[in-house]
Structures are given as structure tokens and as C-alpha cells.
């Protein structure tokens, strides 16, 4: 934490609470500017920004951020320099957060459905009425004895809000609290769980590795924790003088990370896992594997010789061998897998294969390899429930078991394949309430819309996962006071609990006792802020790491809010778990992954991937992110289809022309982008555009590839298989235009980006020393 650059935190104590402010080192002395967090700091010195530390909730990475607030308005978001995940940096999406806060299409107060479901016609109601409606509905469920008919859908939350919702649902009598997010790395967690017994995602130590092989993981734009891993990438490349790590990317479509790789290996879609196993085969066969079970590994990997794998993967045998040699001989090395790889129908197998590769190369539990995150008694994300997934909701709705659906910041209608028929199923749900800031597709279907605070206005906390080899807890605190008539998500659940308790009292007076819950003091606090503080007080009392430095809770709490969270200074490296042959044998791939559709009718593999900045579409309502040129194609305000130029020439498609992408499940139209970084037998479409609702900036912009995907799910993990269909591509008569910022892809020999070869670089380093 020796960030003596230009900032430090200033403590601030209030009457019952405290808050962090963040000042330049060179402004007035501490104590001159104490700002109570609930009062909008309009009285403070104009023109001088106050910095509040909080948590970024734009994606699930859990970066600690600082927010510059001037005259009560959030102006700028930067990474929290103390935070071990964000390390003072922040991605495009995180920095665009104020665009959500001040979005013109935010829901300004509670709404009740007025027209038919999905017609987006709502009437404004008071919070009182909205909460009463919901509480009465829930009470009704309870009275009828079908409490398990309540389903709560939320993104994978990890802090005390998660605990609160879990408790609420359980106390109510329903087991159906389902975390859902399209890119929640379910497969990765599952693969790690089955092959290494890891309960939480490990830290991939890119920073210290010297040879990184990524099987489809695009950590530069969206995978896991892009900011943290990008920092690692920068350090790997030029962090220490004279040492430059190598990056090899194995994927059929060159992602942003692939574009930065020293070597791009365009394996046939669905065979990346085989390539990983072939590399492992080489390592084991050549006797480089020094661990246990050498013989068993040898026989397990027997079938995956480079010769055989080269046939299906179209990666030359020699190349696999060379990669394996380099991977095994460069220390430390690391293999990661994700995104494309985990999106295949046998994504888990592929990710297990990557774990095997790491295991046989001895990369697990070492610096610069896979660093396990400790399972902390207090600060770990809850283990995943792989048994239930989004199809559980669909099935429940179909069967009528789903009586009331509560969604919080989840938009499954946009992020699930149309083929899942979720829309039709949800139509059968008697009552839907949505806790959301925006009129997204799912909220548009709701009977009751409860607008929640933007995360810059709300309280919460987060136990980061994947963490960085040590527990990291981040506090989310309001940087600005609520702009609209909204409520915090935690407050809504607490308020519901209070009302249900009240209903119980009414019921008691009527002589029947059916609502005996919510008497617990957890639910009787004033608001979620109190709840949070209470929870942390308990942690402080239990955990000596917390109380060690700050014996009094108030002092600790102030410190917590100042720093934006709590994390230990350092942590000993966990011992790396071993991958056991018996654990993984069941997950060995039988061959290349399966794709829906016949090759004759649908000649191309379809790869879908999250568009940088939009992720699963949640960024689409930010003008900045819409206007941010895609790093690889420079397209703005719309979606596109990536086609290899040779293929396009064969099909007679020119750049910018509209094409129809047709799978066995439907078709979409989008303009073509001729992309040399994609296999000729593959096309790719980004996810994130094509919203039907979600505000003026997102609506009717581009196409959503979810419309043409099959609704395949991994049997083990329950994750949706996104890269699971073949498609046909043809010219489309539909009107449409593509706007890209680049004029040309070529540099015309102008030496704008100058390069040195690795050999020259070596020579330079030698000369320098």
C-alpha cells in the first residue's frame, strides 16, 4: 500500500457514522473537510471534489473505486489505488457508471403494470402502495401455503446483501434464491470444483508468469477480472526489466487478448481442450511430469497425442509439441481457459483439460501460476449451487410452481437464448416484481417495478471472487444521495420483512398464526445501512484480523469506509491442490465439441462473445459505451458479424453489407465486418446489442445473437452453452448500416506502430546491462 503518489485517505467521523473522503495530498490539512455522507455536500468548497471510496458493481469483478463528487454529483470514477483488485485502475465500463446514475431513462419511481403484460404501459404508484402490493402478494402465498412458489433471481452477489436476500427467501420458506448472470463463470467454477476441489475461483497470476497460454480467455476485455488481469498482463510484458512474458492464445476467433498475443493458434472450434490435452500428453509422455500418478496420467492422456489432435484441431502436430515444450520449460508458466472454451457444449471438459495441463506442468499453487484463493471463514463468496439454473425458473414457470418472481438487477429475458422460451413461460407467472433501475426486457414484463438505487447511491459490500490470493472485502457506500424516488435493494427486503411481520401481527389478531417468521433481529434493523454495520460489527467481534489493528469497532468502521474495504496486507500462498486422475477421468472429452445444425445446411460455426463495454448488454444504455469503438472492429452503435475475408469473398459479401445469420433456431440480420482474425469456417457475433427495451440508447440498436442460439445447458454446471450451433450466412435484403471508426485496417507501411522482434529485444536488454 505504498501509494505515496498523490493521494491519501483522510479520516472523518460523524455523529453515528463516518465516511471516507479522498483528497489530494496537497490540499488543506485533514479535519478541515468533514462531510457527512447523507447530506449532499453542497455546502463544501465549490470546485473542490470530494472522493468517496466504494465498490464498482458494473460487472462481477468487484473492483474498488473512488468517486469524485462535486456539488453532490458524481463526476468521475477512478480505481481505488489501495484496492488489491483494481489497483487504482478501472476499465471502460466501470468509468461509464455515472452514465447509469444520470441516465435519462432511469425509472424515477415505483410503477405498477397498467396494460397487458409486456406492453410497457405502467402507472406511477407510491412506494407505500408498491410495497403493500408486494407484501400482500407474498403474504397471500404464505397463507395459501405455497411459500416455495417465491423465486428470487439476482446476479451472483457475494456480500451481506446476498446473505440478506438468502435469509429473507429462506425465512419466507422458499429455497428458490437463484443467482443468475450470463457470464458468471459457472463452468469454470464447476470445472475447478470437480478437478481441484476448489470452492472459489483461483487467482490466475498473470503478473508473475513468463509463459501464458490462454485457451479462449479474453481477460483484456471481459473475462473474470479484466482490470486486475490487464494489470498483470502489463506487468508480465514489461513489468520487470529484461523479462518479458509470452502470451499464446488458442481460439478460433481472435479476441482482444488474442490480438495482443505473440502467437495466435486458430484451433478448430471445439477442439481447444484437445489441444490443451495434447500439450499435456507431450509433457507427460516426455517424462517432464514429476508429480504423482505419472503412469495413470500417461494412460489417461494416451488418446490425446498431438498426431491425433492435429487431425481434428487443425493445429499442426509440431506446433503443439513446440508449445508444450515451451510451456513446460519456461518457468513459471500458466494456462487459462474461459470465454469461448467454456461456451462449448462440453465447456467443462475443456476447462478441466486446462487444469490438467496446469497440473502436469506443475503450475498449480505456485507464484506465476494458479494461485488458489483461501476459503476464508468470513470473507469468501458463497459456494455455487450448480443444481439449479435459469432453466429451473423456466420449468417452474411452466409447471405453475412459480407463483411470484422477484428479480433484482437481473435481465434473463435478454441474456437467455430465445429458444429457452423464457418469455412465454414467464407470461404464465401470476406475479412478477422487478427491482431494477432501468426498464429492461425483464422489468418490462413485471407487474410491479420497484426502482432501486444505482450502486453509487446504495450500501452493500462484496467479497471478491476471484480474489487475489487473499480475502478482499469491499464496501459499497453512497457517493451521492438518491437522485430519484428509489430505494436501496437491501432496504426493500428489510421493508418487506417488516411488512410481513406486520401482516403476521394482523393475522395473529385474527386468530391464525401462519406468519411466524421475520422476528429475528436481523430483520428488525432500521435500514440496510444499519444491517451492514451490524454485520460488520459481528465480523469485527469474531475476526481478530479485523480487531487487531482497530480495537474499537467505530475506528475500524471508519477505516473501512475510508479505505473502501478490508483486506489483509499479505497472505501466505495456499498449497496448490492436485488434480487427480480419478476426478477428471469422467470429464475427458470424447472429441471435438458438438454443434447444432448440419454442416451442409449450416456451414459455419457461430461464436458469440460479450462485447467489450456492453458485457451481457447491460452497458448498452450508456452513450459513452455505445460510442466506444470496439477494440477489434471499431464499430460503434450497433452489432456486426465477423467473417473471414476469404469466406466473405466466396459468399460475395462486402464489408458493411447486411447479412443474415441463420441457425436452426432462427435468424438475425447484422452488417458484415471482414475480419482476418477469424477462421474461414467460423463467424462471430457479439452479445450486448439488440435490446427491445432498456432505454433510448439501447433500443433497436443492433441484433441479439441470443435469438438464434439453442438452449443447451451443461448438465453438470447448468451454464448455458453459447458456442453450440452452426449457422448459415447469406446476404440480407434488410436495410441497415454499420458505422466503424477505422477507415482501413492496414497501416500502409507508415510505421505508426513500430515493433522490435523478440530477438532484437533480447539484444537490447543485453546491451543495456
Amino acid at each position, binding site marked *: 500500500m505504498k501509494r505515496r503518489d*498523490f493521494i491519501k485517505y483522510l479520516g472523518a467521523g460523524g455523529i453515528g457514522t463516518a465516511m471516507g473522503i479522498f483528497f*489530494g*495530498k*496537497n490540499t488543506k490539512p485533514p479535519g478541515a473537510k468533514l462531510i457527512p455522507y447523507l447530506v449532499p455536500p453542497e455546502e463544501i468548497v465549490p470546485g473542490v471534489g470530494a472522493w468517496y471510496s466504494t465498490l464498482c458493481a458494473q460487472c462481477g469483478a468487484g473492483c474498488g473505486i473512488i468517486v469524485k463528487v*462535486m456539488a453532490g*454529483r458524481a*463526476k*468521475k470514477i*477512478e*480505481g481505488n489505488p489501495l484496492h488489491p483488485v483494481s489497483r487504482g*485502475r*478501472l*476499465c*471502460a465500463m466501470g*468509468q*461509464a457508471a*455515472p*452514465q447509469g446514475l444520470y441516465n*435519462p431513462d432511469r425509472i424515477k419511481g415505483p410503477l405498477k403494470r397498467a396494460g397487458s403484460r409486456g406492453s410497457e404501459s405502467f402507472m406511477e404508484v407510491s412506494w407505500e402502495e408498491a410495497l403493500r402490493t408486494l407484501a400482500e402478494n407474498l403474504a397471500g402465498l404464505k397463507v395459501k401455503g405455497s411459500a416455495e412458489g417465491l423465486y428470487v433471481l439476482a446476479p451472483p452477489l457475494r456480500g451481506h446483501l446476498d446473505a440478506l436476500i438468502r435469509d429473507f427467501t429462506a425465512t419466507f420458506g422458499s429455497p428458490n434464491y437463484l443467482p443468475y448472470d450470463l457470464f458468471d463463470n459457472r463452468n469454470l467454477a464447476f470445472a475447478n470444483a470437480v478437478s481441484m476441489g476448489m470452492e472459489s475461483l483461483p487467482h490466475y497470476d498473470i503478473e508473475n508468469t513468463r509463459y501464458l497460454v490462454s485457451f479462449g480467455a479474453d481477460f*483484456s476485455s471481459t473475462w473474470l477480472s*479484466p*482490470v486486475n488481469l*490487464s*494489470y498483470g498482463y*502489463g506487468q508480465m*510484458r514489461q513489468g520487470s526489466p529484461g523479462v518479458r512474458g509470452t502470451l499464446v492464445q488458442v481460439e478460433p476467433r481472435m479476441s*482482444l*487478448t488474442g*490480438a*495482443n498475443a505473440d*502467437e*495466435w*493458434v*486458430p484451433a478448430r472450434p471445439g477442439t481447444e481442450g484437445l489441444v490443451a490435452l495434447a500439450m499435456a500428453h507431450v509433457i507427460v509422455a516426455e517424462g517432464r511430469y514429476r508429480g504423482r500418478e505419472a503412469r495413470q496420467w500417461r494412460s489417461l492422456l494416451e488418446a490425446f497425442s498431438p498426431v491425433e489432435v492435429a487431425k481434428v484441431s487443425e493445429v499442426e502436430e509440431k*506446433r503443439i509439441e513446440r508449445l508444450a515444450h515451451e510451456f513446460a520449460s519456461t518457468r513459471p508458466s500458466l494456462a487459462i481457459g474461459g470465454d469461448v472454451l467454456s461456451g462449448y457444449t462440453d465447456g467443462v471438459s475443456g476447462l478441466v483439460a486446462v487444469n490438467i495441463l496446469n497440473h502436469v506442468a506443475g503450475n498449480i499453487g505456485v507464484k506465476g501460476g494458479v494461485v488458489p484463493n483461501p476459503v476464508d471463514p468470513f470473507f469468501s463468496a458463497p459456494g455455487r449451487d450448480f443444481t439449479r439454473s435459469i432453466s429451473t425458473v423456466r420449468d417452474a414457470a411452466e409447471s405453475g410452481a412459480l407463483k411470484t418472481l422477484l428479480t433484482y438487477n437481473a435481465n434473463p429475458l435478454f441474456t437467455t437464448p430465445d429458444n429457452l422460451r423464457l418469455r412465454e413461460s414467464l407470461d404464465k407467472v401470476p406475479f412478477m416484481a422487478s427491482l431494477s433501475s432501468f426498464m429492461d426486457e425483464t422489468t418490462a414484463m413485471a407487474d410491479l417495478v420497484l426502482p432501486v438505487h444505482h450502486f453509487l447511491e446504495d450500501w452493500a459490500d462484496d467479497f471478491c471472487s476471484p480474489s487475489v490470493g487473499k480475502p478482499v472485502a469491499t464496501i459499497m457506500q453512497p457517493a451521492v444521495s438518491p*437522485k430519484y424516488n428509489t430505494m436501496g435493494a437491501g432496504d426493500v427486503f428489510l421493508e418487506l420483512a417488516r411488512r410481513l411481520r406486520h401482516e403476521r401481527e394482523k393475522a395473529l389478531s385474527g386468530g391464525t398464526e401462519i406468519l411466524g417468521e421475520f422476528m429475528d433481529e436481523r430483520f428488525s434493523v432500521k435500514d440496510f445501512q444499519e444491517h451492514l454495520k451490524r454485520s460488520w460489527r459481528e465480523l469485527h467481534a469474531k475476526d481478530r484480523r479485523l480487531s487487531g489493528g482497530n480495537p474499537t469497532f467505530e475506528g475500524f468502521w471508519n477505516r473501512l469506509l475510508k479505505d473502501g474495504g478490508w483486506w489483509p496486507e499479505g497472505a501466505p500462498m495456499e498449497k496448490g491442490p492436485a488434480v487427480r486422475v480419478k476426478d477428471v477421468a469422467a470429464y475427458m472429452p470424447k472429441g471435438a465439441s458438438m454443434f447444432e445444425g448440419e454442416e451442409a445446411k449450416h456451414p459455419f460455426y457461430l461464436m458469440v462473445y460479450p462485447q467489450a*463495454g456492453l458485457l451481457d448488454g447491460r452497458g448498452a444504455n450508456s*452513450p*459513452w459505451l455505445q*460510442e466506444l*469503438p470496439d*477494440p*477489434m472492429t471499431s464499430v*460503434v*452503435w450497433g452489432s456486426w458479424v465477423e467473417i*473471414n*475475408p*476469404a469466406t466473405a469473398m466466396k459468399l460475395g459479401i462486402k464489408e458493411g453489407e447486411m447479412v443474415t445469420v441463420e441457425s436452426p433456431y432462427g435468424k438475425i440480420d447484422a452488417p458484415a465486418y471482414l475480419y*482476418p*482474425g477469424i477462421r474461414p469456417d467460423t463467424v462471430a457475433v457479439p452479445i450486448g446489442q439488440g435490446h427491445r427495451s432498456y432505454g433510448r440508447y439501447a433500443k433497436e440498436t443492433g441484433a441479439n445473437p441470443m435469438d438464434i442460439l439453442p438452449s443447451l445447458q451443461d448438465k453438470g454446471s447448468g451454464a448455458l452453452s453459447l458456442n453450440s450451433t452452426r449457422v448459415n450466412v447469406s446476404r440480407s435484403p434488410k436495410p441497415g448500416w454499420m*458505422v466503424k*471508426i477505422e477507415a482501413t485496417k492496414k*497501416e500502409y507501411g507508415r510505421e*505508426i*506502430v*513500430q*515493433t*522490435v*522482434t523478440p530477438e532484437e529485444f533480447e539484444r537490447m536488454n543485453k*546491451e543495456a546491462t
Partner: protein
Amino acid sequence: MSSIFKRIKDKLADYRRPGYYKEFDYHWAIVVDIDRCNGCEACVVACYAENNIPVVGKKGCDDARIFNWIRIEKYIEGEYPDVRVKFIPIMCQQCDRAPCEIGCPVYATYHNQDGLNVQVYNRCVGTFTCATYCPYDVRRFNWFTYKPDKPLDEQLNPDVTVREMGVMEKCTFCIQRIRYAKDAAKDEERRVRDGEIKPACVQSCPTGALTFGDLKDPNSEVSRLARSRRRYRVFEELNADPSVIYLKRVMGNGKRSHD
């Protein structure tokens, strides 16, 4: 009498010195390590947020009027499967022999004592000459008065002017941040410390590809990086003497996959 002559002589020497300044107060510079840059464009959004950059919409982008003060240029070389992609962030290069500065008839752009190429919005009459002369295509023109939809205007940074129609603008190296730091340093009667100032793009860069600092200070991080053997400047042959120094990307010649 002779003192008057001496004064005139000194003054004349001042006025005849190329670039006028004997030496800059500070010589702000950015070193961009292209080998670190992964093209994630966090810097672009950071710049939008810090500098009140307007959004022009799909039509505006189609008309090539996007306002990105910093852009990541991407160039693809080679054909499948030997594809090499290169990224480079291009912002105003703050040239010390800036072609744009001579073009302006009304002094709307000039060189300040920090070696920065300053754009004075109030003076600009919109002759476009600076933008035409700029070899790096970093100047942006307010074709209309762009207003964000309400209430998106609430996040406008009060430290930075909102520009009106007919005015040229460009990257300033976040001069408002430089200003704050210099004022603070002056209050404390010291020089600005290395790393004290970070323009929005430099601050946000996840990979640490961008470094900002004072080239005059030989011990600063930028000076250290600028001594790298990988150093080069874009279009050095144009003799504009840019203050943005790039470190070459380490990259194979694309033949590696053949072996």
C-alpha cells in the same frame, strides 16, 4: 545608455530564440509503452468523463465526427492465419514544433511555459487550419453545439469548459489536473513531484502502458522510460518534435506459426 542597448540586445536575443523559451518550466510528456497496451480503451472513456467530451451519436460517428481526444488505432497486418494486430493510443502529441500553432491566425493555440500546446477556446474562430496542419489528426471540431440529454449533464466536470459550436478542441494532457498540482506545489513552495499528476487516461490505464511526467527532471519515470532503446516517436521525420514518446512493441515477424 549602454544598459539600454544591452536590454534591447537581450530582448532581441529572446525574440529570436526558436520557441522563445530558454527552457520550459516543466516539460510534460507521456511515454506510451505499446508493448503493454492491450487496446482495452479504458483511457478513452476516462477521457470522455474527465473532459466533458460530447457524444455525437451513430450519425455523427458515420460522419467521422467522433470526439475521442484519445483514440486507440488498430492496424491488422497479414492474412489468416498469420494475423498480426497492433494497437497504438494516439492523443495530442503536444509537439514542441507544433505545425498547428503556426496555422492559427488568432493565437487560439500557442505553446505555454510547460511545453504544452494550449488551445484557447475563447479565441477560436474556427478556421480549421490547425486541424488541417495537424499530422496526427487529433483535433476535434464542434460541428454543432452538442448537449447531453438531461440529466446526463449533471456529470459534466466543472473543471473543464463545455465547448460551443464552431470551436476547435483537442487533448490538453488534462491541463486542469496539472493546474491543480502546480498551484498546490506553489503553495508549498516546491516543484511538482514525479507521479503527482496523472491525466485521466494515464490514471485509468489498467496495463500501465501510459506514464506521465516531467521530461526536464532526469530522474522522473518518463525520463527513465524515454531513455529506453525501444523509444520512438510517431512520424519523427515530420520534425514536429512531439512530447509523446512511444516504446516499440515487441512482436515477432508473423512467421512464427509456420515453423
